[in-house]
C-alpha cells in the first residue's frame, strides 16, 4: 500500500496541500436473516476504496474513489486540493489541527474465532434454532433472527509521518419477535433492540449470548404484552435496564459531548449541544454518583479501535466525574479550538474522529461512552423502591436538537410496588430534560450487572454516516420522572 499512500501524499503536497492524509479501506460484510423459518437474506458485501483529505490555502478538501490505481490516486489527490481551495474562498480563518501526530503501528481487534471462517451451516443452524424456539410460543406472528459480521481493514498515512494499519472485526446477533392483536403490535428483542447486539469480537460473541436459549422468553413476553394494561401516566421513580440506559447515555450524554456539535458544525442537520464551552469543567451534569467515561479500549466494545481516522491513538477520557461535566469528545481541530478559550483543556485530540468508510470524511463519533457501575444489585435496588416503574429495552427514541428534552419508549415494563416487581405494563414511555434527569439518579447497579452494549445505527453528518458505538451500563434508578404519556 505504501506506493499508493506515498504517491497520494506527494501529489497533494505538490498541488499545494500543507497537510494531507489518505485512508484505504476495505469492508467485508456478511449478513444473515431468518424470518419465520425461512432464510430471508444471506449476503456477502465487499466494499473498497480510498479517500484523501487535505488542507490547502488554510481550508479542508476531501475526495474519494473506488478505483485504486496510480492514475486515480493522482486525480483524486488533485481534486481534493481543488476542493480545499474552493473552501478557502469563503474561509473565516485558517484551519489549525494542533501538534503533529506521527505513529507507525499495526492494530487488530482481539478475537478467538474468526466468524468468516465459521461455516454458513453452523450460523444458519443457530438462527433456525432460535427461530423455532420463538415460534413455538402460541401467538407469535413474526420472528426475525439475524447475525452480522464485519471485517474492516484500513491503512492510514499522513504527511506528518503516520502509517497505521488496522483490522477491525465485529460480530453481532439478535432476535426480534412480534405478537399482533387488534390494532396492537408488541415486540421483544434479545439481547438488544435495533435488530442486533454487536461487539468488536469474533464468533465467540455469538455463542456467549446464546440466541436459541433466550428466544422463548422473549416470545412469551411479547405475547403477554398484548393483554397487559397500559403504562400509567404519572411522575414516579424509574428504573432502567442496561440496554435502555445505554441509549439514554448515547442520546443525552454521548451526542452533546461531541465538540463538533458544540461548535456548530452539525447545526443544520443533527443539531448543536446544550453543553456549550463555558460549561466545560463547571457544569453539574448529574448527581454525585454519575461518572461517565469515553474510551476506545473496552474489550468487545463496539466503539473500540486502535487509532481513529485522523491517526490519533484510541484512549480513555473522563466525561462526567462525580456528576460534573469535565470532558468532550474531540478532534485535532476542535481540541485546538477549545484550547484557545480553555488553556487547561488537553492539547491533543482524544481520538474520536471516525469515517463511515473510504468515501466519507471523518467526524467526531462516540467510541464507548459508558456510565461507570455503582455498588448495589438489581434486587437490592428494586427492594429499596416503594413505588415506581422498571423499563426494559428501547422501542422508541426522540430528543431535541440541543439534547435536552427527550422521550423514550420501551418494549417492556413492570410496576414496582413496595420493593417488589408488580404487573407487566405495555407501551411504556418516559420523558425529561437531560440535566434534571441525571440529577435524579440515586442508584446504579454494580459491575456484575454492567455490560457494554453496541449501538450499530448512529446517524450523523452530511452526506449521511452511520457509526458503531458502544455504551457500558448497569441498571440505574432515577427519581421524579414523568412516565406513560400515551393514552
Amino acid at each position, binding site marked *: 500500500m505504501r506506493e499508493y499512500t506515498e504517491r497520494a501524499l506527494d501529489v497533494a503536497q505538490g498541488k499545494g496541500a500543507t497537510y494531507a492524509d489518505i485512508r484505504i479501506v476495505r469492508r467485508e460484510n456478511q449478513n444473515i436473516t431468518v424470518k419465520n423459518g425461512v*432464510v430471508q437474506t444471506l*449476503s456477502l458485501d465487499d466494499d473498497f476504496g480510498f479517500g484523501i483529505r487535505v488542507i490547502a490555502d488554510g481550508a479542508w478538501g476531501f475526495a474519494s474513489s*473506488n478505483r485504486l490505481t496510480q492514475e486515480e490516486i493522482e486525480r483524486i489527490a488533485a481534486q481534493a486540493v481543488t476542493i480545499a481551495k474552493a473552501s478557502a474562498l469563503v474561509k*473565516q480563518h485558517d484551519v489549525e489541527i494542533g501538534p503533529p501526530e506521527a505513529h507507525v503501528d499495526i492494530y487488530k481487534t482481539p478475537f478467538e474465532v474468526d466468524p468468516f471462517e465459521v461455516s454458513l451451516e453452523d450460523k444458519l443452524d443457530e438462527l433456525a434454532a432460535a427461530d423455532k424456539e420463538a415460534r413455538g410460543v402460541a401467538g407469535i406472528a413474526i420472528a426475525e433472527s439475524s447475525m452480522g459480521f464485519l471485517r474492516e481493514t484500513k491503512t492510514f498515512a499522513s504527511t506528518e509521518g503516520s502509517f497505521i494499519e488496522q483490522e477491525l472485526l465485529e460480530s453481532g446477533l439478535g432476535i426480534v419477535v412480534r405478537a399482533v392483536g387488534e390494532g396492537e403490535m408488541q415486540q421483544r428483542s434479545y439481547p438488544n433492540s435495533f435488530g442486533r447486539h454487536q461487539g468488536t469480537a469474533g464468533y465467540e460473541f455469538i455463542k456467549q449470548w446464546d440466541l436459541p436459549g433466550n428466544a422463548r422468553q422473549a416470545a412469551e413476553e411479547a405475547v403477554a404484552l398484548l393483554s397487559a394494561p397500559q403504562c400509567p401516566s404519572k411522575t414516579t421513580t424509574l428504573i432502567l435496564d442496561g440496554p435502555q440506559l445505554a441509549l439514554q447515555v448515547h442520546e443525552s450524554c454521548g451526542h452533546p459531548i461531541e465538540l463538533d456539535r458544540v461548535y456548530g458544525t452539525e447545526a443544520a442537520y443533527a443539531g448543536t449541544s446544550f453543553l456549550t464551552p463555558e460549561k466545560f469543567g463547571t457544569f453539574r451534569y448529574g448527581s454525585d454518583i454519575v461518572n461517565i467515561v469515553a474510551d476506545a479500549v473496552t474489550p468487545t466494545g463496539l466503539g473500540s479501535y486502535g487509532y481513529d481516522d485522523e491517526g490519533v491513538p484510541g484512549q480513555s477520557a473522563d466525561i462526567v466525574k462525580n456528576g460534573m461535566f469535565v470532558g468532550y469528545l474531540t478532534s485535532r481541530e476542535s481540541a485546538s479550538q477549545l484550547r484557545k478559550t480553555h488553556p487547561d483543556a488537553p492539547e491533543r485530540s482524544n481520538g474520536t474522529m471516525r469515517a463511515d468508510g473510504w468515501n*466519507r470524511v471523518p467526524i467526531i463519533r462516540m467510541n464507548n461512552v459508558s456510565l461507570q457501575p455503582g455498588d448495589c444489585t438489581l434486587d437490592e435496588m428494586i427492594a429499596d423502591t416503594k413505588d415506581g416503574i422498571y423499563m426494559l429495552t428501547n422501542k422508541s427514541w426522540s430528543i431535541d436538537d440541543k439534547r435536552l428534552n427527550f422521550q423514550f*419508549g420501551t418494549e417492556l415494563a413492570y410496576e414496582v410496588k413496595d420493593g417488589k416487581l408488580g404487573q407487566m405494563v405495555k407501551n411504556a414511555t418516559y420523558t425529561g430534560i437531560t440535566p434534571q434527569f441525571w440529577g435524579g439518579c440515586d442508584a446504579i447497579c454494580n459491575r456484575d450487572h454492567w455490560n457494554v452494549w453496541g449501538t450499530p445505527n448512529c446517524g450523523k453528518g*452530511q452526506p449521511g454516516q452511520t457509526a458503531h458505538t458502544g455504551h457500558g451500563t448497569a441498571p440505574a434508578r432515577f427519581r421524579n420522572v414523568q412516565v406513560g*404519556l400515551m393514552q
Partner: protein
Amino acid sequence: MVGKARLKEIAELALSAARADQTEVLINAQDAALTRFAANAIHQNVSETDISVRIRSITGNKVGVASSNDIQEASILKLVQKAETIASFQQENPGIAPLPEPQTVAEIDAYDAATAECSPARRAESVGAVLEASREQGLVASGAFSTDVQETLIANSKGVLAYHCGTMADMMTVVMSDDSSGYAAGSAQNVDDLDTAAIGRIAIDKAIRSREPTAIDPGAYTVILEEDAVSTMLFFLGYLGFGGLAVQEGRSFMSGHLGEKVTGDNITIWDDGTDSRTVAIPFDFEGVPKQKTLLMENGVACNAVYDSFTAAREAGKTSTGHALPQPNTMGPIPINLVMQPGELSKEELISSTERGIFVTRFHYVNPVHPVKAILTGMTRDGTFLIENGKISRPLKNLRFTQSILEAFAHAVLSNDQTTVKLGFGNLAACVPAAKIEGFQFTGATEF
C-alpha cells in the same frame, strides 16, 4: 458518469457467466459532491466516485446475494460465483417469487449536464452569498449544498433491462442567532433552477423573526404545519403503513381496514414514480415499471404498494413497482408520495386561526405506536404563536406526541404543494401545508 453502455456491458458479463436458474444484476453508480458549511465557513467539502454491483442468484427456491464495488472483469465473475455459492447453502424457501418478466419502461429525462459538472468553486460561490447575507444580519449560517449524478441499471436473466440517469442539486440551511434559528431548503434537477439566495433569505428571515422566543405550556393546539412538517408525517405513513408487507404482517394501520375510512374526507394520497415533482425514476429495484398507486382516497384506505415477493403472497396482486433491493425484511415502500391540496392559501390558513402554533419543521421524529401511527418529535427552526389570525411572537420549541391519522382527520390543506426531500436517498413528497385542530404537544424544551 459511467454511462448506459458500460453499465450494460457489466450486467451482460455477469449474466453470461451466471449458472443459476435466474440471475439479477443491480448496478448503482454515482458522482456526488457536497459542500458543507457551518459557523459562516465551509468546513467539509467532499466528493465521491463509486459504483456498486449487486448479484442475486436464484436456483430452485434458494437465493444468494453478493455485492462489490470492484468492476474489473475477474471481480465480476468472482462475484457471480460468490452469489451462487451462497445460494447453494440456503434452505429451500417455498415463498420465493420468480424474477419479473420484461415490461416496457418509460424513459424519464432527468439529466442535466450543468449539474453533473458543477464545480466546487461554483458551490462555494453560492454558499458564500448565503454566508455573507447571514453575517450582514449578525447571524450564523450552516447547511449543505450538494450536486450529484446517480445512475441505476437493472438487468435479469429473463430479459429485464432498465436504466435511469438523474442529476440533483440540493441546498438546505439553518441560520441561527444566539436564541433563534430559521430553516429553508430546496431541490432541483438543474442546478441553474435552484435559487440558493432565496433559500438563504427565507432562513435568515425566520431566524430574525424567531428571536427572543417565549415558552408556552404544552397541550392541544391548532397548528399550521408548513410543508416540511407535513412531509415528515406523510413519510411515516408510507414507512409504517402503505407497504404491502406491513399490511400482510398486521403491522400497518391499514391491516384489516382496507376500504374503510381511517382519516379525514379531504385526505387523498398517492404514489407516482413518474411525477417530476418528486424524484422521478420510472422503475423499482427489480426493474418493474412504477405504477401510480392510489393509497388513500377521501380518507379511505385504498391500496398498499407491492413488490414481486409481497404480490405473490396475495391472490390477484401484481407488483406495483415499489421494490427495494431484494430480498429484504422491510418490504416495499412508496418513495414518490403526493398529497392532494386543499382550497385555501397558506396565508388564509393562518388568518383563519384565532389562536394556534405555526411549525416550520419537525426534528428527530420516531414512531411511538406504529399500528396507530402515533409519532413523537420536536419542533425546530421557526415555531411561532398565532393570535387573531396573525403570527404574533416566536415560541420555544415543543414536543408533540400525536397520531398522524387523528391529525389528518382534522386537517385543512393549503391550495399549493411543495416538494420536500426527506433526507433518505431519493425519498421525496409533494405536499401542501396543513391546519390541524387539537394537535397534541406533550412537552417543552428550554430554547
